């Protein structure tokens, strides 16, 4: 709804020098709906405005984290830009969680630099990250299954009207906003009154993303949003990631699946055993290369050979070949 207003605001702020001079860039949306203050923990509504598309919001340089003598993460360099998706790829135990916890403010980094809006930062709490518009959607999504979708959307930041003992929830407004915000993300719910537990995993992800966006997130950290989902639901979530990107947000997409990362990613950063394997813009990367790097290159090739040998010529493979052949013929005819 403020798609056009916010980038302009960002530009104006950029001109007047520094997007973080302490003045409150009140979001118009929050003005008209009077989201109450003290929505502690919820994404801050007075986060700086969205910068221009393609502008760097977060820059990390050789960032690292060690717990005593245990080095959990080292030498990670990447950037997050407005309107782009930065994918963080890595197998289990590669250091993805440590990395996002640093970005989300849950852990403090112990080396390197972490720059937001051109200013060096050291977050001491998730609240500090939220104040700068860095919101994290964790795997459990922070939803209450038995509560209706709209109540979940506004939980902790409810819109009210009236005053004193008659101060009450502005239910029509909240339902309407929920419906329109979800529609803007490309999800069309039958009924925002249904318990959120009745939604599919992908739709629930969408509600969590839409909520973060609505409450002023500029950078969205998505912690393995496709991990527990089937192929189709994963596709749905990828669509929402693209929708958030198209609204001008910076997105950090954590995943271990290169096939999910490649279609939406603008930048890929690979982690392996706590180290960065490099940070590549999409132009320098093909899907094959990405898969190969993820799987550890030669290891995968060896695995491929091994699997091939164990699949001798059989009824099944012959029927597959026939099917592929007939499909190709069909395509030629068209």
């Amino acid at each position: 709804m403020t798609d056009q207003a916010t980038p302009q605001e960002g530009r104006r702020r950029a001109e007047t020098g520094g997007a973080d001079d302490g003045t409150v860039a009140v979001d118009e949306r929050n003005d008209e709906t009077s989201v109450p203050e003290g929505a502690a923990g919820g994404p801050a509504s007075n986060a700086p405005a969205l910068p221009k598309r393609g502008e760097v919001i977060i820059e990390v340089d050789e960032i690292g984290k060690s717990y005593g003598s245990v080095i959990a993460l080292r030498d990670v360099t990447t950037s997050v830009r407005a309107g782009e998706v930065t994918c963080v790829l890595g197998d289990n135990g590669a250091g993805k969680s440590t990395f996002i916890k640093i970005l989300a403010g849950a852990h403090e980094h112990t080396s390197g630099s972490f720059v937001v809006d051109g200013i060096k930062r050291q977050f001491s709490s998730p609240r500090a990250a939220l104040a700068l518009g860095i919101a994290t959607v964790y795997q459990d999504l922070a939803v209450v299954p038995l509560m209706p979708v709209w109540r979940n959307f506004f939980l902790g930041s409810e819109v009210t009207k009236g005053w004193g003992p008659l101060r009450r929830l502005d239910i029509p407004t909240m339902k309407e906003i929920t419906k329109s915000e979800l529609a803007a993300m490309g999800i069309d719910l039958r009924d925002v009154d249904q318990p959120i537990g009745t939604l599919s995993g992908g739709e629930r992800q969408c509600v969590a993303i839409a909520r973060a966006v609505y409450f002023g997130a500029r950078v969205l950290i998505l912690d393995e949003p496709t991990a527990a989902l089937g192929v189709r639901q994963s596709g749905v979530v990828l669509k929402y990631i693209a929708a958030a990107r198209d609204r001008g947000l910076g997105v950090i997409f954590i995943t271990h699946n290169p096939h999910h990362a490649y279609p939406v990613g603008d930048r890929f950063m690979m982690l392996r055993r706590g180290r960065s394997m490099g940070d590549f813009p999409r132009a320098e990367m093909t899907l094959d290369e990405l898969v190969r790097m993820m799987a550890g290159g030669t290891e995968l090739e060896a695995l491929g050979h091994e699997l091939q040998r164990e699949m001798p010529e059989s009824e099944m493979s012959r029927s597959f070949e026939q099917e592929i052949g007939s499909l190709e013929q069909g395509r030629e005819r068209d």
Partner: protein
Amino acid sequence: MTTTVPAPEAPETPQDERVSSRAGTAKVLRRPEVGAAVAALAILIFFSLTTASFAQPSGASTWIFTASSFAIMATAVALLMIGGEFDLSAGAMIGATGLTTGIMMTEYGLNVWVSIGAALLLALVLGFLNGLIVMRTGLPSFIVTLGTFFVLRGVDLAVTKQLINQVSVTSFQRADGFTSGQQFFGSFVKIDLGWLPWVDTGRQTLTVYAATFWAVGVVIVATWVLLRTRFGNWIFAVGGAQTSARQVGVPVFFTKVILFMTTAFAGWLVGMLSLFKTTTVQSTTGVGQEFIFIICAVVGGCLLTGGYGSAVGAALGALIYGMVSQGIVYEGWDSDWVYAFLGVMLLGAVVVNNWVKARAEALR
């Protein structure tokens, strides 16, 4: 049912064509209190037809009073249960506040309102302590309030015996300001229902005690809070998924402590209502009722696991209890059958509630 729904906001929120008009009926049937409403109606009809006194105004006065005072407690306990906690000290709280007021009035000759205020303060402090201990230690509230229950029960008896050498307080009609206190908590109105076709002469007077008006007020306020305020939203959230609630900024500690204090407040209110109606209070007043409140709430649709339920439902649960406990007397059966009945109701309600919950959480 589908055509009578007034829809002032209809132009702004056009009905989605995928929501069939039957969804409205289904939505009503999915409300947590529907089961209790159906059961209450069935029980009302049963006792009205099988006993002579149940449906007579003078006979109804008794069970309406019982149902009213239980409805106040059950409503508060239901809010707490929706918030994911139990309070087993709720029953003993009734006795503790009644005794405090009674002893202050008779033994120390204090003004009635001073005594009532002191009892209220005591109740709120105890409720706060319940909440504080549960939240600080992370222990199940079942255990913490079981402890409070035994402490209260013991203190009620011991302190009363120590102070006044007996186990009950009576005859405080002479206390300063008693009349105004009784107007507030112990008065009643008599309604002549002789015009109803089934009413016999001589039994046409329905006595409605103050407790009933208080109960209606409590249920209305509780429903308003639950469904129309931020705090109500928080109650459902802390009971449904506490971690999630905390993550999005719901003040979990505040919400739960207020809920424990609300239950204690309800205990005080019922304590006052029974004190001024019966003009006597015993050390054991309220003891043993704590489970009945929980059963009323569960019969009214509250989940034992929290996050779901309604205030109206809990009041209907209390109505069922009130009707059954009096109806059994009118039938001439042994009154102990009430407990057997309660057990069956509880089991049935839990099964139904869990089924509803599973339906609500199921993927569609």
